[in-house]
C-alpha cells in the first residue's frame, strides 16, 4: 500500500530531502506573510515583486554572484521603490506597481539576453522563470532559513501595529503608529518571502504560495492568528504533496522525465481554495 503512494527511494533521495526542506520553509513563510499581503490588498505587489526579483536572478548570472543575493537584493530594492512612488495609496497603486514591474522585467529581458549570448548560460531563462525544487542546492539552505526567519520576525515584531494599521489606518495613526513605516516594513517582508520562493521554486509558485494558502486560511477562520496558522499549514501540505506527486510522476506518460513540481503544487492549492470556498459558503448560508 505504502509502496503504491511513495515510489521506492522517495525517503532516501537527497534531492527530495532538500526539496522538502527548502519548499517547506518557503511555504511556511509565504503562508504567514501572505496573509498580510491578501488582507492589505497587496496581492499584486507580491506577484510583481516575485517577477522583479527575477531581474536580480538574471543579473547575478552575469556578475557571477550567488543567485540568492541577486533575487533577494533586487526584491527588497523594488519594495523600496514601490513604496517611494506611492504604493501605499489605494488609488493608482496597481498602476505604480505595474510600472515598476514592467521596468524590472524589461531589465530582466536584457540581462537574460546577455546571459544567453555572452556568458553561454543556456537554459537560464527557463531555470529562472519556472524554477524547480529538485535543483535547489543544499549549500544555500542555511541562507534560505536565515532570511525566512528574518521575514517572519518582521511580521511578528510588528504584528499588532500592522494589524491595526491594516484594519483601521486612522485609528493606528491616532495611536502614534507610523502607518507608512509599518507598511514599508510589511512590503519588505513580502519581498523577502517572494524573492526566496521565486529563487527556490520559480516565480509561478512564489505567487501561488503567497496568495493561495492565505486566501484559504482567511476563509477558514476570521481570527487573524488562526487564519495565518491555517494558511501556513495549507501551503506546507500543498508543497509536500506536490513534491511527492512530482517524484511519483517520473514514470508517468508521456515524457518519462517527470511532471513539473510547480504544476502539482499550483493545482493542489487551487483545488483546495475552490473546495474551501464552496464548503464555507454552504456552511455560512445554512
Amino acid at each position, binding site marked *: 500500500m505504502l509502496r503504491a503512494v511513495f515510489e521506492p527511494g522517495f525517503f532516501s533521495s537527497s534531492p527530495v530531502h532538500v526539496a522538502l526542506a527548502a519548499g517547506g520553509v518557503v511555504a511556511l513563510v509565504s503562508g504567514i506573510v501572505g496573509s498580510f499581503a491578501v488582507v492589505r490588498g497587496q496581492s499584486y505587489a507580491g506577484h510583481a515583486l516575485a517577477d522583479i526579483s527575477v531581474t536580480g536572478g538574471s543579473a547575478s548570472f552575469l556578475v557571477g554572484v550567488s543567485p540568492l543575493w541577486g533575487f533577494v537584493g533586487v526584491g527588497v530594492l523594488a519594495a523600496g521603490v514601490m513604496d517611494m512612488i506611492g504604493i501605499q495609496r489605494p488609488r493608482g497603486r496597481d498602476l505604480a506597481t505595474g*510600472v515598476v514591474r514592467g521596468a524590472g522585467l524589461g531589465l530582466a*529581458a536584457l540581462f537574460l539576453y546577455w546571459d544567453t549570448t555572452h556568458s553561454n548560460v543556456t537554459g537560464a531563462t527557463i531555470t529562472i522563470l519556472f524554477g524547480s525544487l529538485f535543483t535547489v542546492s543544499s549549500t544555500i539552505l542555511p541562507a534560505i532559513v536565515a532570511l525566512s526567519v528574518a521575514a517572519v520576525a518582521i511580521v511578528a515584531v510588528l504584528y499588532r501595529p500592522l494589524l491595526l494599521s491594516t484594519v483601521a489606518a486612522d485609528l493606528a495613526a491616532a495611536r502614534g503608529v507610523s502607518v507608512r513605516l509599518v507598511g514599508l516594513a510589511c512590503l519588505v517582508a513580502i519581498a523577502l518571502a517572494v524573492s526566496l520562493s521565486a529563487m527556490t521554486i520559480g516565480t509561478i509558485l512564489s*505567487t*501561488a504560495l503567497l496568495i493561495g494558502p492565505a*486566501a484559504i486560511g482567511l476563509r477558514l477562520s476570521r481570527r487573524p492568528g488562526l487564519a495565518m496558522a491555517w494558511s501556513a499549514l495549507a501551503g506546507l501540505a500543498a508543497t509536500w504533496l506536490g513534491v511527492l506527486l512530482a517524484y511519483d510522476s517520473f514514470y508517468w506518460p508521456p515524457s518519462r522525465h517527470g511532471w*513539473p513540481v510547480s504544476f502539482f503544487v499550483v493545482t493542489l492549492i*487551487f483545488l483546495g*481554495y475552490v473546495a474551501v470556498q464552496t464548503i464555507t459558503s454552504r456552511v455560512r448560508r445554512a
Partner: protein
Amino acid sequence: MFSGFMTNAWLVGTFVAIVAGVVGFFIVLRGQAFVADAVPQGAFAGAAGASLLGINTLIGVAAAALVGALGIGWLGRRGRRDVATALALVVLLGLGALFLSFSTEYAPEIYALLFGEVLGVSANEVLPIAVLSVASVAAIAALYRPLLLSSVMPELAEARGVRPARVETLFLVVVALATSMTLPVVGALLIFSLMIGPPAAARSVTSKPLPALALSAVIAVVVLWISIASAYQTNWPVGFFVGALGAVCYAAGRGYAALRGRRPARPRAWRGAAEQGVTANVRV
C-alpha cells in the same frame, strides 16, 4: 531598417500599439492593472499548449486568454478580486509549465514568447493581427459610453441601467482579444507596459476622455516605434525598450501633473460627457 522583412514588423507593431493604447486607456481608468497583467501572462500557457499540439499559436493564445479572462470574472464574483486574479494566473502558468515540460521546444523560442520577437513577424501573421486589432478597437467603440460611465461613476451607471457585471465581462473579453494579438510581438511579460505607461501619461496631459484616448494611442505607437528601431540597431530584446519607455512615460506623466499642481484624478468634465452619452444610448 525599412526594407524587406522589416515592413511586417513596422506594420504589425503599429497595429499592436494602437490597440494597446486604446484598451490600456480603460484599464488605467478602471484600475485593473493586475488583470491586464495576468491575462497575457496566463495566455502564455496557451502558446505552450499550442506548440505541444502543433496548432496555430495565435489560436492557443486566444483560447487561454479567454479562459483566463472569464475565469477571473467567475472567481471574482465569489471572493476578493485580486486573489481571484492571482489564482487564475498561477493555474494557467502551472499548466504552461506542464506543457513546456512535455514539449521539446527550444529555449530561445520560449524566450521569444515571453519577451517578444517583433523582428520575426512573418507575412502571413499580418492579416490575422490586422483583423483582430480592428475587432478590438470596434468593440471598444461600441462599448465606449457604458464603459466610460461604469468606470468613472459605477453607482450612476447602475442606476442608468448599465449592468456592471456584463460590461466587466465584455471588457475582459476585449482585453483577452487585444492580448492574443500583442503577445507574439511584444512578449507575454511586457505587453502590459505598453498598455499602462502611455495611457497613464496621456491622462495627466488632458482631462477630456476622447483626446486622452487618442493621445494614449499616439504615445503607444511612438513608444513601440522607438523600441523596434532600437532593438534593430542594438539587437537587444524589444521588451527591454518597451518596459523602460513605459516607465519613462509614467514618470513624465507624474512629473507633468506635479508641475501643473494636480493629480490625474477623475475630472468633472468626464462625468458630464459620460452621462449625456448614456442618456442618449441607454434609455431607462
